[in-house]
């Protein structure tokens, strides 16, 4: 079969991509400020904000946010537009998954789909100025986790990524939830595609309440799971001849037409597709959902439980109809976020923040992804519906892999990525090599032990050790 991709002539795009990073970066010029020396004064909360709201500062960014003011910076982050730097746009445009509907790419091997999807995600996280959007994309991608190696998920997920996750990452939760429920990738991943009247399939119904909306102790019962499953019978994915394969479809023949009761609310018979829509409304407006989403945000952004913040955010959720920016604004500017305990970096956080810190020129390609695999976080490959864990204890085994990545990156042995440490160091006024690299990687910290650990070493070793340091594993 002649593939649509080859017809369009993009067949070689992936293969030639890695050579293009230099060109891509050329489009944006040298973005390093002339002087990277940090402004005096209150720097830590700004570093923290860039670490928490995004993937860590790039050289010069701390001073930039200091000039704009943290509030103003965050406000603009809460309302991103589609304007991305030319270099990023260029790199993304070379990926088939950016140009063609995933279901049309089925002649491409699954591994290549995953590679391109990961590449796009990594490039955006590194180079997009809309850092908060990228962080929230990571957050919701895990909240509505889809394992890309189940069935055709690798071909369905690009659509989900674009139209469910990215489109709604900073809008409202009810919208996001609705989009996810209608997403063919989700319908397939949690088996609702095969859910039909008779003995209904409970998979989606359960995870919808447990993981997406109410939380496991959110007040639903096994009976509710079975009733919700009945409501969603017939929600499936088009696969008919000459039809738009892979699109959402409601099949009335497979739907259970009887009356249902969900969380005490009667759903009358003969509701058709509306049964499911009704359930989504009930769940999105349930107080347990407000609390559950609040809890999850607090855990992610403060690193642990904080009942005061959970109540505060749950209240905002209820008052604003689940408006995501309204919840994030006070949380990210809070003293707890900016001056409280550090949160550990997951491997993606670590890798992206390292590449940003050293202002690396990278294609986000196979080499970077192989290192993420070694650290235990290949993107889109967490098999369970709950998303990658966020507790520190789950990730302490990844240190060796982090060290190996840092050593390769700083010594320019990572194919597809380059760093220019001399150039970076030249923009910092005072201090020896170690001071300069610490200033770049861990701005504002006094880390005498790094100097001590790498006595007499080269610039690249100082950079590597700064990335290896325990301090850089936290954000």
């Amino acid at each position: 079969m002649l593939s649509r991709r080859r017809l369009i002539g993009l067949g070689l795009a992936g293969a030639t991509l890695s050579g293009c990073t230099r060109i891509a970066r050329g489009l944006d010029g040298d973005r390093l400020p002339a002087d990277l020396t940090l402004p005096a004064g209150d720097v830590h909360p700004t570093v923290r904000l860039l670490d928490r709201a995004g993937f860590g500062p790039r050289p010069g960014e701390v001073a930039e946010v200091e000039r704009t003011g943290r509030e103003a910076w965050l406000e603009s982050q809460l309302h991103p537009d589609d304007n991305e730097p030319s270099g990023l746009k260029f790199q993304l445009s070379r990926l088939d998954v950016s140009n063609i509907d995933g279901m049309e790419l089925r002649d491409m091997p699954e591994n290549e789909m995953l590679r391109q999807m990961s590449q796009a995600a990594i490039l955006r996280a590194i180079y997009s100025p809309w850092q908060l959007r990228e962080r929230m994309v990571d957050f919701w991608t895990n909240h509505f986790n889809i394992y890309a190696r189940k069935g055709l998920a690798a071909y369905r997920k690009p659509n989900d990524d674009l139209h469910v996750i990215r489109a709604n990452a900073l809008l409202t939760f009810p919208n996001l939830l609705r989009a996810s429920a209608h997403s063919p990738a989700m319908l397939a991943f949690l088996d609702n595609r095969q859910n039909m009247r008779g003995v209904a399939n409970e998979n989606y119904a359960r995870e919808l309440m447990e993981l997406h909306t109410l939380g496991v102790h959110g007040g639903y019962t096994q009976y509710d799971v079975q009733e919700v499953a009945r409501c969603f019978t017939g929600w499936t994915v088009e696969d008919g001849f000459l039809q738009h394969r892979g699109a959402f479809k409601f099949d009335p023949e497979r739907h259970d037409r009887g009356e249902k009761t969900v969380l005490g609310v009667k759903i009358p018979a003969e509701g058709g597709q509306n049964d499911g829509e009704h359930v989504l409304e009930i769940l999105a407006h349930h107080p347990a959902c407000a609390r559950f989403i609040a809890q999850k945000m607090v855990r992610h952004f403060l690193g642990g439980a904080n009942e005061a913040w959970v109540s505060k955010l749950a209240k905002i959720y209820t008052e604003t109809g689940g408006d995501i920016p309204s919840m994030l604004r006070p949380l990210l500017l809070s003293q707890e976020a900016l001056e409280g305990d550090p949160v550990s970096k997951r491997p993606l956080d670590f890798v992206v923040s390292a590449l940003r810190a050293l202002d690396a020129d990278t294609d986000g390609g196979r080499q970077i992804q192989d290192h993420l695999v070694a650290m235990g976080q290949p993107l889109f490959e967490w098999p369970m519906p709950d998303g990658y864990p966020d507790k520190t204890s789950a990730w302490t085994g990844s240190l060796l892999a982090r060290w190996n990545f840092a050593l390769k990156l700083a010594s320019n042995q990572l194919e597809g990525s380059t760093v220019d440490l001399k150039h970076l160091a030249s923009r910092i006024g005072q201090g020896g090599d170690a001071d300069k690299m610490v200033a770049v990687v861990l701005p504002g910290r006094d880390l005498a032990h790094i100097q001590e650990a790498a006595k007499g070493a080269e610039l690249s070793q100082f950079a590597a050790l700064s990335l290896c340091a325990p301090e850089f594993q936290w954000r």
Partner: protein
Amino acid sequence: MALDHSCEDYRRTTRRSLLMGAGISSVAWMTRSALSQVGVRPGNADAGGDIVVSIFLRGGADGMSVVVPYGEDAYHRARPNIGLARPNDNSAAANARCLDLDGFFGLNPALAPLLPLYKDGHLAVVHAVGSGDQTRSHFEAMNLMERGLGQPVGDVASGWLARHLASSPPRAASPLRAVSISSTMPDSLRGATDALAIESLDRFRIDSDQDAAVRQSLASLYKHGKDAMSIAGRETLDVLDTLNRLDPKSYKAANGATYPVSDLGQGLRQVAFLVRANVGLEVACLDRGGWDTHVVQGATTGLLALQLDDLGACLAAFAADLGSDLMKRVSVVVQTEFGRRLQENTSLGTDHGRASMMLLIGGGFKGGKVYSQWPGLEEHQLEDPGDLKVTTDYRDVLAEVLTKRVQHANLGQVFPGYVPNPLGVC
């Protein structure tokens, strides 16, 4: 930013005192570090009990398709499409029948490689076993089992294996006392101060031509910190030192054993290496996902059978590789968070249920038997939406393994407030 001020997660993982008892924590750390500097003392093969190899089947393995209660008519009625036929059912194709174990239960033929172990008495099955979890949530149920609890109550954050390690003296001073062959640490080892998650021993090395110098710099970088990452960094460096002296890559399985290329197979191969290398291994954790068979689960072929094919081949290779002598010192425990609904659903799969089975492999088990207080499968014998009742608490099995095989003497620390009823499996 002061790393000594800690958030909840941060604090939990760094406070050894939570597990070790107040006061002794820093001493314990220093002792271990000091000892590891002089290298691993070869363990005394006769000291202490078995090495525990804990294998978790994630996703809720359908116990009734693994070890089939073929003697129940209700089983065959509820599973017209995905049920396995009786061993002597001549109306069914030979490859659609289960393999008889005891006249009532039969083994899925995908697990045929385990049949010799059963016949030799080295494989025991426990059936209708599970926890008190009623949520039927994977995460809640796994979390409960890995923390060693019966009900989701209390504030026990650490894992049962972590508490086992914390409440028994190490048999040897070893950075490889507890190992999870995985990229992330399982909850059963959560809070363990001497456990490490390693995806591959073969690839566990500093990837630099100045390996020794880099390790020295890292040791200096990591020497002071009290945060979870600093502690993990020191442990990582300890393990690097040890593995540097061994050569996991060159390990060849014995007795003609061939491990499957799956993660579980390669993981077990590495565990076998550690067992043979005598480096003080006491606990190894592995897992295998993919058991959440809501759709097209199949019977003797299909999704579930593919899973079982691999599981059977992996376990059989491990037992063959170590041979009956070494297997006398190893207890393999296979468990899953819950079983699945008796009634098959309209997408030819099964939904989350209650009780499942456990497999126990090792020279110390009284195998060749299915241990079960079988609750029955008729409607009045099922629980809630139609699930197999839990008649054996999974902790009864784990506790018996710990006391009789591992010679653990502080069971109250591992399963607080629980009085186990031994089944006599070992």
